[in-house]
């Protein structure tokens, strides 16, 4: 009664040409949905399509099977042009059981009438409760207007592999390649790359599964799509944000990365652990987050600028050491791949709520540079820039990414290595007589750093207030001199920063301001709104501290300004909330204080990237309100 991989002629069908589609593969944890989706994304990218993948990750390694909370999977947005974000709701989903699917349906993640491909082995499960649940879900989905196809995944795969649970994902990849008219050879190559570390037999078996899935879909699925793609004209790399950060560290000329395991930052260190030593670098897994940061400070002090990589809770722990680096003027790059907070919060989910802790964190006045990566490509180049700034200004640079970029994949032009990216050699020249370790330049606040090994530069660096000779000094003049010059360095950097570009017209009714990972989403929503004739533009901030010049003038061009952030802010409609107590989202708060302009904010802290459609809705509504 099961359909099988039998030699039936393919169904007569013509591929429907699409501008873009959002596909989701969802399973219990450990069934390989993510590997399937990543491969699909990579194959599409190799065909020349724009892609953006978003992982759906449960917090536990082995959450209970067939549970709504245990859903593990991936969403792939495939477009004929460049894709800059995860997009709106899903068009087509493959689910390995009905429970993980239900979670996505009830969260409103599927488009009305979306196509669902559902594993049907549950129909014959030995537990009647499972069978009942399955049948009930099928009925509900059909009544809900979804286009449902039942797939005999397990039955088909058990003919090819001993454990069908471990082969399903590649069978599904084959089905999806057939549905989206993706090239068979490219798919085979991708499978070889994915399983390349294992032996050739494993590659062969998985390629067989992909072919079988493709054949099955050709016989049994009565529709087919094609998302046309321009030919790839220049070499592109396809990596996720965390790998891009790792590649950035590699390219930046830093040679020590010190870390402690934490989600979602750690995969950057996994990546570096594989390849960093080949170029003379090393990853040190410290005993805790504080040690990881202090180790990096020690390494920076004695040698080249080092980097420490973490996420929210780890960032909190590093704050005191970050203050030490600020006080002693040791260059340091701190990468914070943000997650949901506060406390342990949502380790695998995206949020942009560490901006204030990064900007104002560490006790006392501790000025440091804060910048944010706005996309996958920017993750790569930002690390290189961060190292340069840290060494030029002898300061701490905090580079913010977040969980949504960490696992998202997007192709970008292959970087061409430049020797300018390399760190200069460690200065070992003698220090001229009379020079002091903190000979601050009166204009820029920058002092030449003395590194161990330099004759004549001996001094004891201290986290205590100190004078130009690095001697402990509690007097008022020395203290203010130190504060002044450490602060001036930010102004010196600020003078070199370019004004952010405005996306859209420079005047209008509404300006949307974002920072970090939301760039693609905001610009897509604004472009869609502008197509509807709405007078909206957007601006994206890479440098939050210091903030480039020219923003004040940009703000003046708009009747209303609103930040959009993946972070919480009080809702004006809540009974107790008014203008005297409303807590704004982080960037809105910073902009309001700097420009003394009434800047509104909107955001979501739903653990996932904001959807352009949701933001478009907000923009439309906003423009109907009377200006404040």
């Amino acid at each position, binding site marked *: 009664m099961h359909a099988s991989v039998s030699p039936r002629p393919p169904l007569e069908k013509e591929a429907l040409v699409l501008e873009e589609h959002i596909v989701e593969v969802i399973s219990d944890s450990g069934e390989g949905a993510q590997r399937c989706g990543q491969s699909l994304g990579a194959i599409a990218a190799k065909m020349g399509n724009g892609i953006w993948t978003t992982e759906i990750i449960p917090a536990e390694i082995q959450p209970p099977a067939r549970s709504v909370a245990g859903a593990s999977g991936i969403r792939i947005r495939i477009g004929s042009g460049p894709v800059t974000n995860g997009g709106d709701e899903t068009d087509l989903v493959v689910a390995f059981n009905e429970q993980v699917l239900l979670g996505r349906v009830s969260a409103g993640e599927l488009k009305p009438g979306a196509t669902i491909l559902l594993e049907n082995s549950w129909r014959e499960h030995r537990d009647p409760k499972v069978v009942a649940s399955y049948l009930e879900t099928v009925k509900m989905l059909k009544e809900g207007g979804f286009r449902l196809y039942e797939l005999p995944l397990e039955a088909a795969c058990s003919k090819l592999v001993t454990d069908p649970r471990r082969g399903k994902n590649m069978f599904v990849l084959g089905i999806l390649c057939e549905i989206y008219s993706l090239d068979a050879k490219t798919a085979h190559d991708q499978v070889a790359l994915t399983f390349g570390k294992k032996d050739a037999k494993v590659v062969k078996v998985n390629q067989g599964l992909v072919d079988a899935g493709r054949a099955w879909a050709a016989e049994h699925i009565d529709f087919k799509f094609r998302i046309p793609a321009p030919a790839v004209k220049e070499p592109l*790399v396809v990596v996720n944000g965390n790998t891009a950060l790792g*590649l950035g560290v590699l390219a930046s000329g830093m040679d020590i990365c010190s870390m402690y395991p934490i989600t979602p930052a750690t995969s950057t260190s996994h990546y570096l652990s594989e390849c960093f030593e080949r170029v003379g670098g090393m990853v040190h897994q410290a005993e805790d987050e504080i040690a990881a940061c202090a180790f990096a*400070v020690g*390494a920076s002090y004695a040698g080249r600028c080092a980097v420490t990589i973490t996420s929210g809770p780890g960032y909190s722990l590093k704050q005191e050491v970050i203050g030490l680096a600020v006080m002693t003027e040791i260059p340091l790059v701190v990468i914070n791949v943000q997650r949901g907070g506060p406390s342990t919060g949502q380790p695998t989910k995206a949020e942009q709520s560490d901006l204030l802790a990064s900007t104002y964190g560490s006790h006392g006045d501790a000025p440091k540079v804060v910048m944010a990566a706005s996309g996958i490509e920017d993750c790569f180049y930002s690390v290189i820039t961060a190292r340069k700034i840290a060494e030029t200004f002898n300061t701490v640079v905090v580079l913010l990414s977040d969980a949504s970029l960490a696992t998202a994949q997007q192709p970008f032009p292959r970087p061409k290595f430049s020797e300018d990216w390399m760190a200069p050699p460690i200065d070992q020249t003698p220090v001229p007589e009379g020079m002091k370790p903190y000979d601050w330049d009166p204009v820029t606040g920058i002092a030449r750093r003395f590194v161990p090994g330099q004759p004549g530069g001996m001094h004891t660096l201290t986290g205590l207030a100190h004078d130009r000779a690095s001697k402990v000094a509690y007097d008022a003049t020395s203290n203010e001199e130190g504060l002044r010059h450490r602060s001036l360095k930010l102004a010196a950097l600020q003078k070199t920063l370019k004004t952010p570009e405005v996306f859209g017209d420079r005047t209008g009714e509404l300006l949307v301001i974002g920072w970090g990972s939301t760039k693609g989403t905001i610009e897509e929503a604004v472009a869609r709104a502008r197509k509807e004739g709405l007078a909206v533009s957007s601006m994206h901030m890479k440098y939050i501290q210091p903030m480039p010049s020219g923003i004040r003038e940009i703000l003046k061009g708009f009747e209303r300004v609103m930040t959009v952030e993946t972070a919480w802010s009080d809702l004006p409609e809540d009974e107790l909330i008014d203008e005297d107590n409303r807590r704004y989202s982080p960037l809105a708060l910073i902009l309001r204080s700097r420009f003394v302009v009434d800047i509104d904010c909107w955001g979501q802290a739903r653990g996932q990237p904001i959807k352009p459609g949701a933001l478009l809705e907000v923009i439309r509504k906003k423009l109907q309100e009377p200006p404040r």
Partner: protein
Amino acid sequence: MTMPVTQCIIKLHEERHDLEDYQGGVPRWCSGCGDNAILTAVQRLCRDENLAPERTVFVSGIGCSSRFPHYMKTYGFHGLHGRAFPVAEGIKMARPELKVFVNTGDGDCCSIGAGHWIHAIRYNMDMVVILHDNHVYGLTKKQASPTSPIGFKSNTTPRGSYLEALNPLTVTLGVQNVSFVAQAVDWVPELLFDIINAAYHHKGFSFIRIIQRCPEFLPKVFEPWLADPAKTLILTHKDGLTLSPETARTYKNQLAHDPADIDRAREIASSEDPIPVGILYRNPDVPCYEEVRHAGAMRTAAQLRAGLDAELDRVTVWPRS
């Protein structure tokens, strides 16, 4: 193995140094503080070993003893409370050719920095670690520390401290990869120097606990030991300390102890009365983390370019020809 560029330079300008070359500012410790004796011994070691001041780094945390680097005329890093170890490890990893010393106190090492201490022993990086153990928090004005004797009346324990003192020697000797453990007391300067000297010549994490007097907050606690030399147990061995005739005459309570014997070292370390003084344990064969991790490797632009290109090749989509 490539040699770091900085190491090639070392041989070029050898010059002799005298004590003054290592003397920084005038110490601001209280008169009678045991830190002064340690400073004198360390400066003598630097001179005897002719350490290049620019290639020597003293790293400390926070506390009375952590002021130590300020009184040396070498490079120094006076960092955060409890965090001297990870800073020193980062320095050693970046620049394995530098001579690294760590000065830490009983609060700094055994309380707020205890986690780092355990792991620093495991890393076994080549550095001399001096635990200035005066059994009390001095800089914050007399609070009980983990090594304060039970019943010690302090500002936070006005009715006497509640817990048995922690023994830094047994803790250190209990950690995997321990490679050098010694104990000294500030009132026997000759042995204090010999022990620091032995620690310096051991390659690895050379841990010395120095019991030192705090005349301000714990003035009388060591009086019985000062009054009766028999209460100090001197450990002697051909691979450990050999005593001068004068010292041998004064300190007659001696025990031959082979520093290779870790079981015996643990037994001896457990004794608080008499106080053992000498080399408890030494194992030159424990690998150093900086060597395991190939610290100091050279890197060139060509190597970096090749490495990056190889990584990019794995993820590149090439235009179809």
